[in-house]
């Protein structure tokens, strides 16, 4: 069990941040969800501690696209910090409903979106091949290996 996000991310690295905001200025999630930004997330970790972020649903807007850390002048692995936050938050059960729904869906169907009639019709219109059913056992195996079961309780 994780006790602290600093087991997964070196806290020392936070001191390198001088709040230039080049990360938030690059973040596609921040462009869409104005309440979120990696710069502020990092500052909260540093000044307010991990509790200030693991209970904060906003962090889940991050798509772990890595653009922020690609551009961070201080080479801070910002997405790794967010991954650490996700892990601890998930273990504590602080998983937003929507995320949990998505994870459940993957576990059950192997896909992150619901495949309904409309989707299939759209595919036909775009002359995409029909979707083959997935091997759920294999997916379950993969999820187990990645430790997802330890992190969250699947329904």
């Amino acid at each position: 069990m994780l006790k602290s996000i600093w087991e997964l991310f070196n806290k020392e690295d936070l001191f390198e941040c001088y709040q230039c905001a080049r990360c938030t200025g690059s973040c596609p999630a921040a462009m869409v969800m104005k309440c979120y930004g990696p710069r502020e997330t990092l500052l909260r970790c540093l000044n307010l501690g991990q509790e200030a972020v693991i209970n904060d649903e906003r962090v889940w807007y991050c798509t772990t696209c890595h653009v922020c850390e690609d551009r961070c002048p201080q080479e801070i692995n910002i997405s790794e910090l967010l991954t650490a936050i996700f892990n601890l938050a998930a273990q504590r059960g602080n998983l937003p409903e929507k995320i949990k729904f998505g994870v459940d869906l993957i576990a059950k169907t192997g896909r992150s979106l619901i495949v309904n009639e409309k989707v299939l019709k759209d595919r036909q219109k775009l002359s995409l091949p029909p979707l083959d059913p997935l091997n759920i056992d294999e997916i379950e195996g993969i999820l187990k290996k990645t430790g997802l079961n330890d992190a969250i309780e699947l329904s």
Partner: protein
Amino acid sequence: MTPKKVQRKEKEEPRIGVYVCHCGLNIGGVVDCARVAEFAAGLPGVILSKDNLYTCSEPGQELIKADIKEHRLNRVVVASCTPRLHEPTFRAACEDAGLNPYLFEMANIREHCSWVHLHDKEAATEKAKDLVRMAVARSKLLAAQEPLEVPVTRKALVIGGGVAGIQAALDLADSGYKVYLIEKDPSIGGRMAQIDKTFPTMDCSICILAPKMSEAGRHPNIELLTLSEIEGVEGYVGNFTVQVRKKARFVTDSCTACGDCVKVCPQVAPDEFNAGLSMRRAIYMSFAQAVPSTYQIDMDLCLNKHGIIACDKCFQACQRQCVDYSQQDQILTLDVGTIIVATGVDVYDPTPLTEFGYRKFPNVITSLEFERLINAGGPSGGNLIRPSDQKIPKTVAFLQCIGSRSKRSNIYCSNICCMNTIKDALLIKEHWPETKILVFYIDIRAFGKGFEDLFQRARREGVSFIRGVPGEIIEDPETNSLTLIGEDTLLSQLYRYEVDMAILSVGIEPRKDSPVIQRLLNLSCAADGFFLEAHPKLRPVDTPTGGIFLAGCAEGPKDIKDSVTQASAAASRANILMAQGKVIVEAITAVVDETLCQGCGMCVKVCPYSTIREDPETKIAQVTQASCAGCGTCVAECPFSAITQRHFTDAQIFAQIDAITEEAPETKAVAFCCNWCSYAGADFAGVSRMQYPTPIRIIRTMCSGRISTEFIEYAFRRGAAAVLVSGCHIGDCHYINANHQTEKRVNRVWKKMERLGLDKNRLQLAWISAAEGNLFARKMKEIDEIIQGVTPEEIEKTKQILVPKKKGKGEGTEPKE
């Protein structure tokens, strides 16, 4: 005092006086100084031992002097701060009282003890005792020495003709010395000639620089060598011989700069002086105010190659017949006593930061390009125009810290770009008051005299300062206008600003060719690549190499005022040497015992200064005393112990090892540190109060090249738990490359330990620069862990089996009683 008396004193029984300094609370607050003094009093040979508040103070020094006389002391040991600080002070005091200064020894119980063990007073006191024990043991074996006097040539060389080099050359020339001013470009002037106005006063840059340039050009004491670079340097403080390549100019001195030749030249290339924003011909003058005011031909561009004349248009055009295609490079040999390095800086190239689109979007330019655009003598005649459509921009953005303060480029603050941007913003406002100006910054550093005023003025004149650098710049391909996307961190709000032009406020960085200068002059560089000064506060323009000084941005980013100040300081330091007309070479040189030398030539091979010669007949090694730098590398290499380093003898070092390992050696590590880098790094850790474990005991040598394999093995045989050998980084050795020998020797011991089945991890090799106090502290923690892991069995086994090789060892490889 005559040498004879010294001889007699040497044979006397040691009468050692020990002074343990409290340094106020700096040492006394941690180390129990009275207890250390009491301990010292019990050491053999010590006849008096005292602790006092400030030993370096006048009364402190007077006390030592009085004691020397009253108690007939023939050795003095002071336990206080680093010898790098006060050794000269105490040596002078000893000399005053008639004691040869080489009979003085110091124990560093401040930087290496009290300051780094603030929270463990007991262990710190124990360590201080050990350090004193080491110093006393060494002091007994010290011998009086007479330093050598070497004459100083009263001529100076200044490398680099930027504002710093010009100032240094003028100061020295005005003091009456002959100065060679070497500039690699066709004209002197440097960066300052390229910039338009100067902060914080907003003076016209070339207007204040040009008079200085002409003065340097016509000064009777200055020989200006442009298009010239140094290719070789030999010698030592006061006596350098420098090889200079003066490249062919292909235009003779009779050129009157009429410019008739330029019009006819068919060949064009981007003009470096205008940052590539305009074109120049193959025959050209870099800028109107150039000194010397002579044209030159860029032979890489000229149609005439390898002596084949394909074009003679300029030759025909020149009425005075100054064009000479057959000119050759000249190699000059200059004898000088002092050298000032003023090679300045390059400007960061932001091309790798693809998110800002420099070179891709025409309207993203650098601050240097801006200087040329806004300058009346520049390519646009002083009009700030957008490169894409030559229109005057209505909205301009500045992006700060580009290429500075970043692990992706240079980690330091470039010092000038904040103020430069504020200056640039005000310049735009002056010419086009309606322009909207946005400055995107992280911190505005307006720390100098007059800087804050200028910053406030810019704000009042309507320049917007927005805290938060854009994440990216995107371009509208139709209009070539730019959109900046980012976050205003003070408002926690995202922004999108559309601007006509963006200026990247680029940092400054060491010259690309500075490693060449570093190697030729045997200088050290700090981690950031700038040349390292001998001491950051007290010897800020000296280099560790005697007779060589630093001026201007070559030492670190700075503005014009600081460059000029430093240049005058460097000139003054050089002046002092030349005015004295002689230097004293420290009596730490290598001396050969001809009766022991077998003529094997090993020492000749390792001497970084090629200062050892074999006698052609006897093959016996001979060391030129004046050019021996005193690294001791040959001493450690000699298989017959035929070479001794004065003041750093084998016997003295063995005595220090003995002292360390006298009590509980299994809890201690013996560290060998070189004076210039790793010892200084340890000092720096102390000054910065970095806390680390107490087991380390440092033996100082001038160079890590002095450390013989015997020292390492002896320390292990005496039961030390670990040994550290440390020196300057490879490439940064203060003695050119002596640390290569260090590396080889440590490798030899590692191999031997491996062969004997010993834990080779107990021998550590670390390259630590004078600036890397943190690295030193980290290494100390590592070594502490190693000590914790060593078993008594391992130590015992090492003692038994790590025996010296039997063959051909002379005396001195093992401690003599």
